[in-house]
């Protein structure tokens, strides 16, 4: 079955991320001057304003920072409600958004902030494999 949800258009400076995703790697932008990882990918380090940026392979591990259960959605997502969205604190620092996997949307109180999550990639088309995060322990 083909992927039915909206897929982003690849930007002009994010190719290393999407190439990594196709290979199952979570690539993250890091500043070579202050060594901090930032997300989303910038043209400039938002911490020290250096433009000496590089891509590193992330661990693909993180924790749930906060979440919500979507009961009203639009487009193809409307057919999927309820589903859980979450912001993920990356092990390397900064945060990603995801539709959270491995949780029960009918029991929101049982989802735990701080729960450990791992990244997985879903092919949306030939070019774009999208990262999603899954709870790997309670």
């Amino acid at each position, binding site marked *: 079955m083909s992927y039915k949800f909206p897929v982003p258009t690849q930007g002009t400076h994010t190719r290393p991320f999407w190439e990594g995703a196709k290979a199952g790697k979570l690539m993250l932008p890091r500043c070579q001057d202050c060594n901090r990882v930032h997300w989303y990918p910038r043209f400039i380090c938002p911490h020290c304003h250096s433009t000496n940026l590089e891509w590193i392979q992330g661990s693909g591990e993180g924790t749930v920072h906060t979440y919500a*259960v979507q009961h009203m959605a639009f487009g193809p997502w409307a057919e999927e409600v309820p589903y859980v969205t979450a912001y993920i604190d990356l092990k390397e620092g900064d945060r990603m958004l995801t539709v959270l996997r491995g949780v029960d949307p009918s029991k929101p109180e049982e989802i735990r902030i701080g729960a450990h999550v791992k990244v997985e990639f879903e092919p949306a088309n030939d070019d774009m494999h999208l990262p999603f995060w899954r709870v790997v322990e309670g």
Partner: protein
Amino acid sequence: MPGTLYKSAAIVGAAEANQIGFLKEPVTALQLHIEAIKNLSDSTGLPISRIEGVFSTGWSSELCEHLGIRPKYIDTTAVGGCSFEMHVHHAMAAIHAGIIDTALISHGENGHSARAIGGRGAANYGRGGVNSPGQEMTMAYGLGSAPSNYAHAMVRHMHRFGTTTEDFAHIAKVTRDWATLNPRAAMYSKDVHPFGGPITVEQVEESRLIAWPLTILHCCMVADHGGAVLVASPKVAASLNTKPVWIAGAGESMGHSNMLEMEDFTATSASVSADAAYTMAGMGPSDMEMALIYDSFTITAAITAEMLGLAPRGEGHLLWKDGRAAPGGSFPINTNGGGLSFNHSGMYGMPLLIEAYRQLSGTAEDGINGDKGKQTSARTCVVNGTGGSLSTTGTLVLVADD
């Protein structure tokens, strides 16, 4: 005689993006902005972190977010090619007023590259073009409406402070009580709207889920509204038929543009914008006698009350829960019935101003049905608008005429 702004500010540097012209490798407008800003910083020696005001045609909050800076003055005037000259004028006024010392005016427009990748000059991408990098990394994950975003803040608040959905439901209940005193409120009564009239905390809790933990009665309405206010000099004010309400303080700030960049989901930049407004007014939260707070959601009102210094962190909801914010209470909040129950058309900043003016000028009874009850005795009011996804804030301290 020169005018007031004569030599009150100067342009102290200028720079361009690394490459301009008919670029072979398409670039986004955002990249052109950022390169020019970096080069401007390098050539002038002014660190980007010391930029205090950001002026750009609709782009300002995205630029600030991308740069990781928190400006004190934001201008997005976009009226065509002359906008940048106007930005200089506006920056002069802000500098003359002592609000900022440094103003960045920035331009990025990929008129050529847009043929390949879209997104010519507008901060709004889409239209078939590339996404902004923030959108590129978030648009796949099923968020759309405002409640889908704001629910994440409520969950984090509950986690951090031990608050409950019932705590926030009191905000909806009390705000509805105010609306029942306002004949112009969309939820004034059952005659006006089938779901109008008083509501209970239980009804708020049991109403339809939109984005857990937000039920529909935790969310503002989307209705029709038009409004306007007039601001004038003291001299003109003295010549009019209507009473003045004085702007004692004003402040603005932002934390992020995309909620992905919201560092603390239980806090907004209202703490910064309020600090500026209170400082300008020479007053503090304890001098305020009422508040008008953008209540897009109950959680917005609770967090904002905390940011404005009206309650300790984690206790904003208590203003409503213990009745202080309610009709007859010691600290009235959202006396028109709020975005929750009066009216909210999408951008609620104007109804806040109108109700604040009415309260402090003693004209808060609409008198349509001859009803009484909404007018308070407050002489001071803090007004706070919130924009985006708990992103941007503007705070005013208003005082009644002597």
